[in-house]
């Protein structure tokens, strides 16, 4: 279970069924790594094409070798322009790199991701990647004999497009803006056992409504987290003891809770507390936080 304190940028989309759905916006770092993986794979593809070219077109003049030449040129064209689009269409929004990092492309407002959106976002790579690459390695071919200040201003302008993901809330690059898409993290949470289902062994522990009204949803879910993560571990006894003491103090629990009873007690309290809060939720009252002070 993910720690709740890790800050993620959350974006809400609305599914065609009208359900608002929160998705975690992908971090620029993992997107950069995914892009590097994809570039590497593309590069391997291009190198293979180069090797083929050398092997097949030895003499360079025969009609067969020219045919191979034509085919390989087309393959290079398709790799450079079609790699990302192909995978995003046929692998449901993920290239090999994105898949490795657990990222997905989705339509920004929910709804289906269309082929044209995929093409739109990947055509923009000419502006975001190939152009900066050319400026970096062959500035002459782009700027010609322009004066230094023009080269500088032009480079800064292009740099803005490269840094676009850092400049907006959804971490959208230019292609995402043009296509109305965004890249999100594929969320994976496994279903754990229902904490409230297990009844504690031995005698049932009862709490009064007054006692259960001391805490709110936030504390309930922290308790859930603590129980899920630490209840099984012997060495976390002291932590559970502290939690237990705080609760017994706040709800004015008269009897002492012996060490071996701590987990059953906390589970029973969690269950009763959740029942109470959910009951009030049904009545339309959502109590978020605990009350101040202790029960007297």
């Amino acid at each position, binding site marked *: *279970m*993910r720690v709740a304190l890790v800050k993620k940028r959350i974006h809400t989309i609305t*599914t*065609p*069924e009208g359900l608002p*759905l*929160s998705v975690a916006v992908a971090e620029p770092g993992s997107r950069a790594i995914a892009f590097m993986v994809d570039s590497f794979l593309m590069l391997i593809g291009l190198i293979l094409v180069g090797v083929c070219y050398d092997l097949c077109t030895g003499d360079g003049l025969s*009609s067969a070798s*020219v045919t191979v*030449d*034509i085919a390989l*040129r087309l393959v*290079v*064209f398709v790799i450079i*322009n079609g790699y990302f689009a192909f995978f995003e269409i046929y*692998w*449901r*929004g993920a290239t090999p790199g994105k898949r490795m990092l657990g990222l*997905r492309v*989705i339509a920004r407002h*929910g709804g*289906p*991701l*269309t*082929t*044209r*959106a*995929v*093409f*739109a976002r990947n*055509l*923009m*790579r000419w*502006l975001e990647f190939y*152009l900066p690459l050319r400026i970096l390695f062959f500035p002459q071919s782009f700027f010609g004999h322009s004066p230094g200040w023009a080269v500088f201003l032009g480079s800064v302008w292009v740099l803005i*497009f490269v840094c676009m993901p850092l400049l907006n809330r959804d971490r959208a690059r230019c292609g995402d*803006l*043009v*296509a*109305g*898409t965004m890249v999100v993290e594929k*969320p*994976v*949470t*496994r*279903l*754990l056992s*229902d*904490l*409230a289902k297990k009844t504690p062994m031995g005698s049932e522990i009862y709490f009064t409504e007054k006692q259960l009204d001391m805490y709110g949803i936030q504390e309930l*879910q922290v308790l*859930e987290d603590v129980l*899920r993560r630490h209840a099984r571990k012997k060495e976390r006894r002291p932590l559970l003891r502290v939690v237990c003491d705080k609760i017994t103090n706040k709800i004015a629990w008269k009897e002492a809770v012996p060490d071996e009873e701590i987990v059953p007690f906390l589970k029973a309290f969690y*269950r009763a507390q*959740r*029942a109470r*809060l*959910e009951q009030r*939720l*049904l009545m339309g009252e959502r109590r978020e936080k605990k009350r101040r002070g202790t029960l007297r």
Partner: protein
Amino acid sequence: MEEVRLRSSDFRRERVTQWVELESLVDRIEKKGLSSLPSRSIQRLPALYRAAVSSLSVARSISLDRNMLEYLESLVARAFVCVYGVKPRTGGTIREFFSRSFPAAVRHCGAGIIASLGLLLAGIVVGLATYSPVNYDTIMPDGMSQGRTPLSSTEDLREILYSGSGSSDSELGLFSTFLFTHNAQIGFFAFAIGFALGLPTIIILFYNGLLLGAMAGLYASRGLGAEFWAWVLPHGVTELLAVCLCGGAGLQIALAIVRPGRHRRLDNLARSGRQAALVVLGAALLFLAAGLIEGYFRQLVQDVPTRFIVAGATFLFWTAYLGLRRPRERRP
């Protein structure tokens, strides 16, 4: 005191088998693709997805079990991608592309495309009108002129217009391929750079018109004007149109940023961007056609009237296909 019943636990117990079934489907689709599923499972997918959607919305209002809520959120989000991801349908899409989506997208970007055509023509006219040997040397980059300078003899200039008749088929194919890939990538670039508020696209269009105009001016000054246009236009009509489509698509996204109209700026950009991408995709096919005409036809047919007839035919064809067609408009 009687046993407390937790509604959320009962709810979970009733629905959990459906969730687990959906989860196993989604796991499998993520690993091996939709096509790996047996058809029965594919039929179950939408129903299970909708059940999970309704479970999530109920759970949000009755349950405080955080693990279960997070689980449902993530399950629905993952299933959402499987259900609403791109659906590749190759056959139907291609026919629909040519008969409807491409012409419709061209009309959507009409303003930008007409502006591009205007810029290109303006460049040609200015280049032609201001032709002089000095101006020609100033604007023409060395790589572009390929020996066609005001110092070249009229004979040499004429020879270029009729060269290539002795080439073999495969060489012509190679030339076509080179022209296609090279020009298409320039077109993609002209589109992408439209995002920079259109200014670079405007410069590219006007400047390319200027170069063509200057070249025409050079040939016209030697009395070879008609023959020059007969050499350029058979493929030039298609190629220049493709350039204008790409440039126009680029200008359209610039326009969408500058003048959003009644939509929000970002929404409008996304709307125009998707249409513009279709235009560019179609333009790539035009570049392919132009490359074939330039690579094969121009080298094989040396007759001036025939060249003009073909140029006129391509012009009529594209005008009729993109300009006059009025398919049924379908509101999305």
